[in-house]
């Protein structure tokens, strides 16, 4: 048992933290979010250069990491600094391409690691809520071609991506587990329309319409109709990433609040001297430690058998959802009005923490999944 980071991971973390502290100020981020650019391409290239993207992949995938703890280390810093550049797509779509792709398809992984290509996962649909198996988008053979029709919603980083990894149904009904395939869809394929927007937390997203999109067999990622398992595994890795990101955001929000409690005076003394706030802060600190442990449990069990992995994924996402809401709400409350302003970094962390609960299953969804897994 060892809860210390390896030297390599500690070095990556330190380098990344220094870089972000230097380059990623709240003002820069606000300006970026107010702009029409989905993210800062320059920063993204620098992140690639630092090895952040390479750390998302195993050595046999041309990376130098790829384990749960690699994701944890990187995304804790992503969360701490509030990075909105597309690192998550490397885990989700990138991870699927690396896991399922043939040699030609896997060339994209090298481009992703180099920071020259963004592939976004398009799994969401209206009415699917958080269920990966709810796929109404169809993939129908037409001669040599496969034709995709449907609308994919909440495609994170869909605006700014060059390629989509889209789930589509080859057989079966909307909620069947079987019959789902994954396809590599270049966004410039005729019939693809990407309507970008920004989420509440500044992350770029998109609604993607697939209107008679004609692909060949070569676009299919993995075996026909058997995409769900790999999709679920990739999302488990994505959950590790966003849980660690939430942990980083909690740490940042907590640090801001600790400073504020020390500095801010009211009724003649630092508000941190008020015992009611002290005790609530103590409870919050405990939950942040709990959140860290939950992320460690998930990261350390990512390669365990499917059910073990899922139990830890659901446990972590549930706990992170609750702790994240507590931290966001309590930090704002302890700050008072200033904590609600867009100018102050706390509001960014609060929005991010809140929106992470709406990604890939909220705390209720994962509580139910946890119960089902434990019963089953």
């Amino acid at each position, binding site marked *: 048992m060892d809860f210390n980071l390896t030297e390599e991971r500690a070095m990556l973390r330190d380098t990344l933290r220094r870089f972000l502290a230097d380059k990623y100020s709240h003002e820069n981020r606000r300006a970026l979010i107010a702009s029409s650019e989905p993210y800062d391409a320059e920063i993204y290239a620098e992140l690639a250069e630092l090895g952040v993207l390479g750390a998302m992949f195993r050595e046999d995938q041309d990376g130098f990491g790829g384990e749960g703890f690699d994701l944890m280390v990187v995304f804790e810093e992503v969360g701490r600094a509030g990075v909105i550049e597309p690192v998550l797509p490397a885990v989700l779509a990138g991870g699927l391409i690396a896991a399922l792709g043939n040699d030609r398809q896997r060339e994209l992984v090298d481009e992703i690691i180099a920071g020259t290509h963004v592939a976004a996962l398009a799994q969401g649909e209206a009415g699917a809520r958080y269920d990966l198996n709810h796929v109404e988008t169809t993939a129908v053979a037409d001669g040599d071609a496969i034709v995709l029709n449907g609308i994919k919603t909440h495609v994170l980083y869909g605006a700014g991506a060059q390629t989509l990894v889209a789930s589509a149904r080859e057989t079966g009904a909307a909620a069947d587990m079987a019959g789902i395939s994954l396809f590599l869809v270049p966004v410039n394929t005729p019939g693809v329309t990407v309507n970008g927007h920004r989420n*509440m937390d500044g992350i770029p997203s998109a609604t993607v319409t697939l209107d008679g999109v004609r692909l060949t067999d070569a676009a299919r990622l993995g075996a026909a109709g058997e995409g769900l398992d790999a999709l679920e595994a990739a999302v488990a890795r994505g959950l590790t990433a966003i849980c660690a990101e939430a942990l980083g955001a909690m740490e940042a929000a907590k640090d801001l609040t600790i400073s504020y409690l020390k500095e801010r005076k009211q009724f003649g003394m630092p508000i941190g001297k008020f015992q009611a706030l002290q005790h609530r802060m103590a409870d919050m600190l405990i939950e942040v430690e709990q959140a860290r442990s939950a992320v460690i449990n998930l990261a350390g069990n990512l390669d365990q058998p499917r059910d073990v992995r899922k139990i830890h994924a659901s446990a972590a996402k549930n706990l992170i959802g609750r702790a994240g809401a507590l931290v966001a709400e309590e930090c*704002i*409350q302890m700050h008072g009005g200033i904590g609600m302003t867009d100018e102050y970094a706390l509001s960014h962390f609060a929005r991010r923490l809140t929106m992470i609960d709406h990604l890939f299953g909220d705390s209720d969804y994962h509580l139910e999944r946890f119960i089902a897994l434990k019963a089953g």
Partner: protein
Amino acid sequence: MDLNYTKEEQAFRTEVRQWLKETLPRELREKVRLGKRLAKADMELWHSLLNARGWLAPNWPQAYGGCEWNAVQRHIFEEEACLVHAPRSLPFGLSMLAPVLLAFGSEDQRQRFLPRILNGQHWWCQGYSEPGAGSDLAAVKTRAVREGDHYVVNGQKTWTTLGQHANWIFCLVRTDPDAKKQEGISFLLIDMQTPGVTVRPIVLIDGEPEVNEVFFENVRVPAENLVGEENKGWTYAKYLLTHERTNIAGVGFSNALLTTLKHVAGRVKSGGQLLAENPHFAARMAQAEIDLMAMATTNLRVVSAAAKGQAPGAESSMLKVKGTVIRQELTSLLRRAMGPDALPFQPDFLDGGSNAAALGPDHAAAAAPTYFNMRKLSIFGGSNEVQRTIITKAILGL
């Protein structure tokens, strides 16, 4: 003990309901229902409709164009208005400034300002808080120095709600810098068109500039705009803060939110099941509803005592805290109900002046912004921490 309304109160309720049905414009109702932001014109329209009926100032004396409703009548009106998603009328002139003028202003001031609140000529905002003062309102630093028949004002106010639309501001200013904290404060009315007044909007966590900073740089204010006596402003400010708190529980708003939440939960599906039938979600909704049912009665107990002339003490603080907790919980549930559809930020749709279409189902666009915006409930008007201290002091006397 009798939980029933009198016949007169029931008749009044019917009258209010009928009027709302006939008068509230459909577009306005839809904006409120969907949580869109009201444009200035929307709010002005609603005020003018209420004014035309003579119902804009529920608590003013009839002599000044008010309704003189008692607490129960006001409660009934608010309940009915919330139920049909009517906008709330703006409190700054109507229920914050006016009671102070009625109690402490000169007759000249009443004649000059009250009619203009009713006819919409004046849009008031509040200049209480200052940067770094927060709930410690007495720490006023904005200076007003008497020069002849004017005060010259310098300083800064903040958290001024909807100040961007206002043309008048009532301010706490320090007129005697040597006096002790609560003394030496005066209550001054300032025309915002006066040179030296600048308004800077503050964008909040929901992406909207709901509040503002207001700067004063050598602003010359006629001495006749002083309310009451110089250096007695803290008395008037406290009066304002304790006055008009019958709707502090926000029961009407919470009822409307609960209706919306049930509407959504009856349409949104999770795992093939309506959210309303999901046991976990249903349990949370029911818990909130049960708490709200009890709070509605707690509120009526206070309202009913107030209608009999008893002044609410720590009860107001209890209603503030519990009302806040329930309302915030309901906005949190509504946000969660939307699932991933709560993610997109849709300022164009939310803008009351636009006709942009929304991503996702009804109520999705406003769910997260409303949740974030409502965090303010436990901060402003005396934070919940301040209210808890008031409650315990009243009981423990320590």
